[in-house]
């Protein structure tokens, strides 16, 4: 497939595009397209990919039999009467509730311990959608994919529903009695045999409860562990500053950004906020504006790296060398050079160094949590040297309740287990039996504890090994509190009573300390009341609940000095007498890391994270941002390595790392570093619900405490077996050679020639159509959308927000493989130039709402047609499923319900659905209609108040969720609306505009800001 990695010969440079993209190479979406464009061209013209509309395992005879039966039965459903529905009014109607109108409640969700403020929508008491809280600093109204998908977790039918003892149903009361017995016996030992294991905790209440317990039992120990943790960041800070500080980045202030393997736009605890700040500096709307420049150095392509102006793929183990070389180049350190970087890197190094020096105080160097503490020290050193501290960077205490080195913390616990010192182990959340470092052999050692209890939302690998399992409440079912990355504290407010017999960590701890145990509301309320015992407490409490945050809880800036380095007049220089020179620690590095040696890297999976979302169908089916794989993980390898090892996509290989072996299929990934293999954590779960079963491969089996994030010396062996991996990358592809799908350019080009986008675009006269151009006169609202490609970071949050808002079903891996994925908005990835390190561009594609819509003229039953506001409607009850429309859609945005994808049968999923959107049935076409339910609601509200709909009053689900503010929706008939202003911008273009479809969704061209010295 990828034998020929040279540019395809058949692709002619497009003369139209010359001035626009200069000498750039043409766009491609998959390596197949890159290497075999001819075959790819043939597929382009299909409505769906081959086989999408075929029956599987079905022959002609069966088909005829079934057809006969269907015709005979077809008339029967028409004879049924509409069943009688029930109306079930309240017994006592809640005061503030208007049936039919949603209420919004502020709450917060934690991931990795840190909170993001949310607003949850409730229809008659059941949560139906999660939005970001605009007042919360970690959200600003946006969310990421995990927050959106958390809703499905609440209604997951596979959730644990009862207290279990050794796998048998038991009761909470019995558990409390059992744990009291344990505590009784620990009295004499001061709790020496009792251990608590939690995930990362930022909750002040939970911390207080644990501390109370520790007061009572001074020898009890509290351990914290999550497989994706900040150990390296903390250790780096400790070396650099002698104390644990958290670094807060202000990307909106930065002109030059250098990322050292950091995925700060996607997997950082503050990524939603960082994406907003980052995007603010990327949308240069006017030539006189400034645009930030972003350099990324990383081993495997991430969302963050895909947004870089210059991306350098190097092995994770070499990033420390790179940072060191940069520090030397800048003069930030004066240690002798350890290794001369390769000359290719040399150019980039000089360019970065020059840029950073020219922008002192306006740059950011950020290191990823997967890089060693030494890299973090170097990043701190560089930031200090460049004068960024106090400007683009500030320091605070950590918002976590008790930040510890989690690997060491778990190691302590395992050591105690091995020595049989643990009488009772209470595990509050998490799944260490699955996701702890394999050399700890946690699962085996767990058996040594005499009493083991596990609180968990599902019966997972750890629950299966524990004596007691307590079902954990979802955050929408229980009271708690949590802190955001910047320290802002939120009360986690439930929207619904526990669906099952769940409990929270608070209730378990409370039952241990102060019998007979309070409710989680009382626990959280009493804790805050004890901190503010004034008469005004209730008012403040209600305000905190209403606002979703407690005012003035943001952490104050902390003054800290870089250890062993002091500022002098000329810059920062090491103190020669210091014995604690942090760079001494750097000298032990391998002077000549062998680049031939294969390396593996571990990262949390882009959609199911560390495995906790494995049973979430929305996340499983969400294409991974770069590879667009669904329902699986794979070993990502570079095209060059694939060629060398003669591997194709889906070839199973055996990876041997420190004598541990794992069989896993490979995926050839453009931009992946040669001789580096990227693995994603979280797949291959064994004790999991029916969604996550048989999905992917457990790479935790290779991960140990010494190579938590990457390790060298892996042996790759081809097995000859094949594994079917499914990707949407090559689905719904649009003919990209002749037609202009995507326009991009550099900021310099835009400065020189501000109308370079429109100058080269072909937009036919409005009347150049065979239809009736005057057929529709739009007198009222004219809905339209503008998507800013410079701002879009490609995080996929829009896709999953749309799924939640519009009741879009999950279809499963085999159906996706047939091209039947149902997402109404997809994010297309485009690559440019050689596969070793291509430029990447993300393009969200919803329905374009064409004014001259090709789909409408071919529908034989008038199921897709225009309304007076210019929306291209899809009337499900009229649709008979001819699929002519999707065949005629040049954008390939229509989705067909080949089977009964909507799950009508599972009762727990019914209250999750948006009651304002039809649940589509088999045999109908469906697509985006700009969240028409939101438009209808706003229209009705405005008419009742006798006014026009205000600009910004309607936000589509994709717009609302977007962390980068890349999507703007509104009335294009109003010249003052935000969307009109964007559409009149010089960067605005229509996708396939030359077809004269007159799409209402248009794009602002992607601008990059490469260093002119490097592009030559």
């Amino acid at each position, binding site marked *: 497939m990828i034998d020929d990695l040279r540019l395809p010969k058949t692709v002619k440079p497009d003369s139209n595009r010359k001035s626009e993209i200069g000498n750039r190479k043409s766009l491609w979406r998959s390596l197949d397209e890159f290497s075999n464009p001819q075959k790819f061209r043939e597929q382009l013209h299909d409505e769906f990919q081959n086989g999408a509309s075929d029956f599987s395992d079905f022959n002609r005879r069966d088909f005829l039999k079934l057809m006969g039966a269907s015709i005979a039965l077809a008339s029967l459903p028409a004879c049924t*009467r*509409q069943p*009688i*529905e*029930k*109306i*079930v*009014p*309240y*017994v*006592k*109607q809640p005061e503030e509730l*208007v*049936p*039919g*109108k949603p209420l919004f409640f502020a709450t917060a969700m934690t991931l990795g311990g840190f909170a993001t403020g949310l607003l949850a929508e409730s229809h008659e008491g059941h949560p139906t959608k999660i939005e970001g809280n605009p007042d919360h600093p970690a959200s600003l109204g946006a969310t990421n994919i995990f927050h959106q998908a958390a809703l499905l977790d609440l209604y997951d039918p596979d959730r644990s529903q009862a207290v279990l003892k050794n796998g048998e149903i038991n009761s909470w009361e019995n558990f409390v009695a059992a744990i009291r017995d344990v505590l009784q016996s620990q009295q004499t030992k001061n709790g020496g045999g009792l251990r608590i294991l939690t995930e990362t905790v930022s909750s002040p209440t939970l911390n207080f409860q644990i501390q109370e317990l520790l007061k009572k039992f001074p020898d009890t120990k509290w351990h914290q562990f999550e497989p994706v943790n900040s150990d390296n960041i903390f250790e780096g800070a400790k070396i650099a500053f002698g104390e644990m500080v958290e670094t807060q980045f202000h990307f909106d202030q930065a002109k030059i950004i250098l990322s050292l393997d950091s995925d700060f736009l996607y997997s950082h605890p503050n990524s939603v906020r960082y994406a907003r700040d980052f995007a603010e500096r990327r949308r240069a709307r006017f030539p006189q504006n400034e645009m930030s420049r972003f350099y990324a150095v990383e081993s495997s392509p991430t969302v963050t790296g895909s947004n870089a102006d210059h991306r350098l793929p190097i092995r994770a183990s070499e990033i420390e060398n790179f940072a060191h070389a940069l520090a030397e180049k800048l003069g930030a350190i004066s240690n002798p050079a350890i290794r001369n970087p390769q000359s290719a890197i040399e150019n980039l190094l000089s360019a970065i160094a020059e840029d950073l020096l020219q922008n002192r105080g306006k740059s950011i160097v950020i290191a990823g949590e997967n890089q060693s503490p030494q890299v973090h020290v170097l990043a701190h050193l560089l930031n200090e040297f460049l004068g960024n501290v106090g400007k683009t960077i500030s320091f605070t205490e950590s918002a976590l309740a008790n930040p510890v080195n989690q690997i060491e913390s778990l190691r302590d616990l395992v050591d105690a287990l091995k020595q049989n010192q643990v009488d009772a182990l209470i595990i509050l959340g998490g799944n260490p039996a699955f996701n702890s470092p394999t050399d700890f052999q946690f699962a085996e050692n767990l058996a040594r504890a005499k009493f083991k209890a596990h609180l968990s939302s599902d019966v997972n690998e750890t629950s299966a090994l524990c004596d007691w399992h307590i079902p954990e409440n979802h955050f929408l079912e229980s009271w708690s509190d949590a802190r955001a990355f910047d320290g802002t504290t939120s009360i986690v407010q439930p929207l619904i009573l526990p669906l099952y017999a769940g409990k929270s960590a608070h209730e378990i701890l409370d039952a241990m300390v102060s019998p007979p145990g309070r409710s989680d509301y009382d626990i959280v309320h009493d804790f805050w009341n004890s901190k503010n015992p004034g008469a005004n407490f209730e008012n403040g409490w209600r305000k905190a609940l209403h606002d979703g945050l407690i005012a003035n809880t943001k952490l104050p800036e902390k003054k800290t000095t870089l250890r062993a380095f002091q500022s002098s007049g000329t810059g920062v220089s090491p103190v020669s007498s210091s014995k604690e020179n942090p760079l001494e620690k750097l000298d032990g590095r391998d002077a000549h890391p062998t680049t031939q040696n294969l390396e593996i890297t571990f990262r949390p999976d882009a959609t199911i994270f560390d495995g906790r979302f494995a049973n979430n169908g929305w996340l499983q089916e969400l294409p991974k941002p770069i590879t667009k794989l669904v329902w699986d993980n794979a070993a990502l390898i570079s095209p060059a390595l694939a060629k060398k090892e003669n591997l194709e996509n889906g070839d199973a290989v055996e990876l041997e790392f420190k004598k541990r072996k794992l069989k896993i299929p490979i995926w050839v990934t453009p931009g992946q570093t040669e001789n580096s293999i990227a693995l994603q954590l979280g797949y291959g779960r064994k004790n999991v619900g029916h969604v996550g079963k048989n999905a992917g491969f457990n790479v935790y089996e290779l991960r140990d405490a010494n190579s938590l994030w990457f390790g060298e010396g892996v042996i790759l062996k081809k097995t000859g077996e094949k594994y079917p991996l499914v990707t949407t990358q090559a689905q719904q592809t649009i003919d990209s050679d002749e037609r202009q799908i995507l326009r991009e350019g550099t900021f310099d080009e835009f400065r020189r020639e501000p109308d370079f986008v429109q100058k080269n675009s072909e937009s036919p006269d409005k009347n150049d159509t065979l239809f009736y151009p005057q057929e529709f006169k739009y*007198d*009222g609202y004219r809905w339209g959308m503008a998507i800013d490609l410079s701002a879009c970071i490609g995080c996929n949050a829009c896709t999953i927000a749309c799924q939640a808002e519009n009741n879009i079903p999950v279809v499963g891996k085999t159906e996706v493989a047939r091209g039947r994925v149902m997402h109404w908005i997809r994010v297309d990835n485009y690559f440019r130039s050689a596969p070793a390190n291509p430029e990447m561009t993300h393009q969200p594609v919803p329905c374009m709402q064409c004014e001259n819509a090709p789909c409408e003229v071919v529908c034989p039953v008038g199921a897709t*047609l225009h*309304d*007076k*506001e210019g*929306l291209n*409607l899809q*009337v*499900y*009850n*009229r649709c008979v499923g001819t699929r002519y429309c999707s065949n005629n859609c040049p954008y390939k945005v229509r989705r067909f319900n080949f089977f009964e994808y909507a799950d009508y049968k599972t009762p727990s999923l019914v209250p999750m659905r948006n009651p*304002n*959107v*039809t*649940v589509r049935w088999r045999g109908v076409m469906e697509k985006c*209609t700009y969240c*028409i*339910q939101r*438009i*209808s609601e706003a229209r*009705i509200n405005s*008419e*009742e108040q*006798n006014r026009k709909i205000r600009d910004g009053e309607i936000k589509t689900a994709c717009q609302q969720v977007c962390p980068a503010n890349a999507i703007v929706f509104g009335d294009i008939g109003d010249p003052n609306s935000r969307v009109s202003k964007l559409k009149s911008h010089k960067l605005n273009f229509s996708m396939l505009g030359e077809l004269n479809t007159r799409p209402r969704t248009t794009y602002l061209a992607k601008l990059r800001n490469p260093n002119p010295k490097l592009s030559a």
Partner: protein
Amino acid sequence: MAQIFRRRSNSIARASLAAFVILVCAGGWVLHAVYWSPWTTRQMTPLEQPVPFSHKHHVYGLGIDCRFCHTTVEKSAFAGMPSTETCMTCHSQIWKDAPMLAPVRESLAKNVSLRWNRVNDTPDFVFFNHSVHVNHGIGCATCHGQLDQMPLTWESHVLYMKWCLDCHRAPEKYIRPREEVFNLNWTTTNQLAPGKKLVAEYNVHTEQLTDCSMCHR
């Protein structure tokens, strides 16, 4: 050899051809009749309810306003159904031991909702909104009929799309002054001219009313 078909076979053949046409037509007519019959549409058919609630008694007899029970009709898509507590405001004082009202008392005592049978039911792909109609001068009686004459509630109109469109195409035929919306006995001899005025006054966008997106999402 004798003829297989006798002479009258011709007549039978002709007759059966005619009979076939008639049968098809009759079959079509029967289907049509069934489709529009009260058996399918439930028009004019009182539904059994857990409590035999009489609109006639409460509205005509006692003069209770629609909004006393259907509280959200001016604010929301859903008109609102009275909570058990609403019923019990009066029935804790009058008819408090009536056997007919036992389910209501039980509902309050056990905190379990009453389950009424929906009389006016549109399909799930239709999104009807009460508030926008009420606020634009469409009276309750226009769709629900003379509720004050119903001892048990029935559907007054066939809620087929044709019937909806009849008004959506020409709202002036049915619109009334806002203050008369809840008057079940409002009549006028002069509908059209004032109707047109009201349509303009209430900003009813007639050109938009037949868009599919008005009701289907």
